[in-house]
């Protein structure tokens, strides 16, 4: 069997990569992809612990996380499309309408 620590380490690495992506990139679409990476890292931790505890509850939670991720992607991409129509850009540092 795969040791739990490996799985948690992999989850942490993927989550950190997602954090770097959100902080480093300017393209809103790539930021969204990085958020997906972080959600998937959390899912991996859920599945790892569910496997460790011989319980299905963790896997059911992953199912719900996937649903929320799908809804979030749909709404987020719609917002990005709308922003692009208004401002002709998807770079987050050029969108400062609420900055005052």
């Amino acid at each position, binding site marked *: 069997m795969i040791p739990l620590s490996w799985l948690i380490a*992999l989850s942490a690495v993927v989550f950190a990569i997602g954090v770097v992506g959100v902080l480093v990139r300017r393209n809103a679409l790539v930021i969204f992809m990085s958020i997906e990476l972080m959600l998937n890292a959390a*899912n991996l931790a859920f599945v790892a612990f569910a496997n460790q505890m011989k319980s*299905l509850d963790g896997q059911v939670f992953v199912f719900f996380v996937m649903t929320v991720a799908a809804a979030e992607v749909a709404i987020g991409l719609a917002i990005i499309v709308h922003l692009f129509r208004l401002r002709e850009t998807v770079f987050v*540092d050029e969108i400062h309408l609420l900055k005052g």
Partner: protein
Amino acid sequence: MLAALFVGFAALLVVTSLMVVLHKNPVTSALFLVLAFCSLAGIYLLLRAEFLGMVQIVVYAGAIMVLFLFVIMYLNLQHDVETGLQIAVRRGIGWFVGVLMLLTGAALLKRGWALGPANEVLPGAEQGNVAAIGRVLYSRYLFPFEITSILLLVAMIGVIVIARGRSRAHAAGGGAGGGA
């Protein structure tokens, strides 16, 4: 054998995730993300989460990534132009925070948190866990499952309202309801 497969999938996952973050072209990033999701599905299979492995491929690599690619190509984006001092500073901060998170995780691991081998084979794992997941989902988690449908409905209506845009919404508001 299992460990070798896991190491292979994990290496693929980490490399493709890095490429998602580092590559300048959003389309290439999206395609690398598909590969990352597929390797994650492989890891799910290794962990005896067959249902989630399949759903991962269908929902993430299929639906969500097609949505991403569709929007990227619809917007017809050029490459990122990432130069200038401000962006360099921000990039430095981003990498610093990422490395900090990794070090925190490493420190936690070193203190013996979540160490030790996983359990042996799950009982009755040979026939897959789709039936078991379905049983749990439709009994103990029935209410959250139903709430999920409301969430999806809200998302669907929200997307339609947002994507319809301002000008047409105004026009439809004056008319007889629009038809969108």
